[in-house]
């Protein structure tokens, strides 16, 4: 159903484009579930990312020096980027401190899992799988609503859907739109933006690899072999573009998290 290139599989030996199912690798514990629904490589990578992030930042700050070493400097720069660049700038000097851990964990969790897609052998951005993106979006969605309720009580639902300074007539029009936009579309876009960009990037890499392999190995014509080499060159450029998108999407995901929390904290100001 999701054909990303026209299949030419009608005759034996034709080019078969990779499909989404290729992003679901065989299960490591196949007895746990049917194919594509069990515990697989993607989940191992999620676990790996948690171990790596915890290890790196704990080790980097184990013996903090006033004049930091390379590792401590790198870790502190990353921490300060999320703390000041996202947390303080979006949520504001007054309220941002309790949210640093959430933003920090979100940013580096998403970032590392995205970057897995650019690391040979791992080569799979974890968030190209919808389940992980949904899980993160649900956590943020729940947090956002909980913050709103904690700060403004049940009145928050009214505050969240009624923009201030709008005439009652317009409210009739706007309130349903705001409900759809905030409570239904928001978590979907939050998760699907991440998942779709990662999946698209991953499929481009797969498509380029399998296409180049087909052109070089299967095809007899020298010209087509040459085109295969060009595809490899192009895929290198795509690789760097993907790298940029991976970092950017981690940033966007965390930025939106901060914006949602800020909106919930200061709902009356809107």
């Amino acid at each position, binding site marked *: *159903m*999701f*054909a990303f290139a026209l*299949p030419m*599989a009608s005759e034996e030996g034709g080019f*078969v484009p*990779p*499909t*989404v*199912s*290729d*992003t*679901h690798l065989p299960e490591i514990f196949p007895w*746990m*579930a049917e*194919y*594509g*629904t*069990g*515990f697989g490589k*993607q*989940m191992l990578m*999620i*676990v790996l*990312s*948690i171990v790596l*992030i*915890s290890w790196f*930042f*704990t080790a980097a*700050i184990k013996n*903090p020096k*006033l004049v930091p070493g390379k590792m*401590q400097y790198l*870790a*502190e720069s990353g*921490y*300060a980027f999320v*703390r000041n660049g996202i947390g303080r700038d979006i949520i504001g000097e007054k309220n941002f401190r309790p949210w*640093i*851990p*959430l933003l*920090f*964990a*979100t940013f580096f*969790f998403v970032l590392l899992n995205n970057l897995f897609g650019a690391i040979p052998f791992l080569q799979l951005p*974890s968030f*190209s*799988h*919808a*389940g*992980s993106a*949904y*899980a*993160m979006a*649900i*956590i943020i969605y729940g947090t956002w609503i909980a913050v709103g309720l904690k700060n403004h009580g049940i009145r928050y639902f009214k505050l969240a859907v009624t923009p201030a300074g709008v005439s009652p007539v317009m409210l009739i029009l706007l309130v349903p739109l705001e409900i759809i936009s905030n409570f239904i579309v928001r978590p979907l876009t939050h998760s*699907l933006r991440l*998942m779709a960009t990662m*999946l698209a990037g991953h499929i481009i890499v797969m498509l380029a690899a399998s296409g180049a392999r087909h052109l070089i190995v299967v095809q007899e014509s020298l010209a087509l072999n040459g085109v295969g080499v060009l595809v490899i060159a192009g895929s290198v450029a795509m690789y760097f573009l993907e790298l940029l998108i991976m970092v950017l999407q981690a940033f966007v995901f965390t930025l939106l998290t901060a914006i949602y929390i800020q909106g919930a904290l200061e709902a009356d100001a809107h």
Partner: protein
Amino acid sequence: MNSTDFILAAGESVNPLMPNPWEILVTGVGFAVLLFIVIKVIAPKFEQSYEDRVTAIEGGLEKAEAAQKEAEETLAQYKAQLLEARTEANRIREEARSEGAQILEDLKTKATDEATRISEQAQRQISAERTAALSSLRTDVGALATELASKIVDEALKDDARAQRVVDQFLNDLEAQQNAGASN
């Protein structure tokens, strides 16, 4: 697995929007664990490190400020002392100058007094010697003149009494003459 299986698999089971429940569970629990570690360990340590650095830098600045202030105070103190020392030196120099002048004046006076004293003494000695010379001359000149006259007049004047009378007369005249010269 050949190519047709791929297509079948794609068509049959995989919709990229349909989540694998295991993935939701692993991601959710995993993120919770990560968040727990971040809240409990990582964030406090980084905040602590940040605080420590702020404290250290601010402490350093304060220390530097204190040192600066102290240095300025010391400098002012030194300057005051220097000024005091200069004034003192000037005063001493002035004193020495006036003292020197005083000493010079005293010496001059003393020298003048001494000179006067010496010249007076010399004067006295001269007049004493003159008196002595005069009295000695009176005796010697009488004898010499008598001897001379006796040689000239020889035998004619062998009468002693007469000769003594002539000599006395001559000396008295001489003395009278001299007194007249001294009184002039």
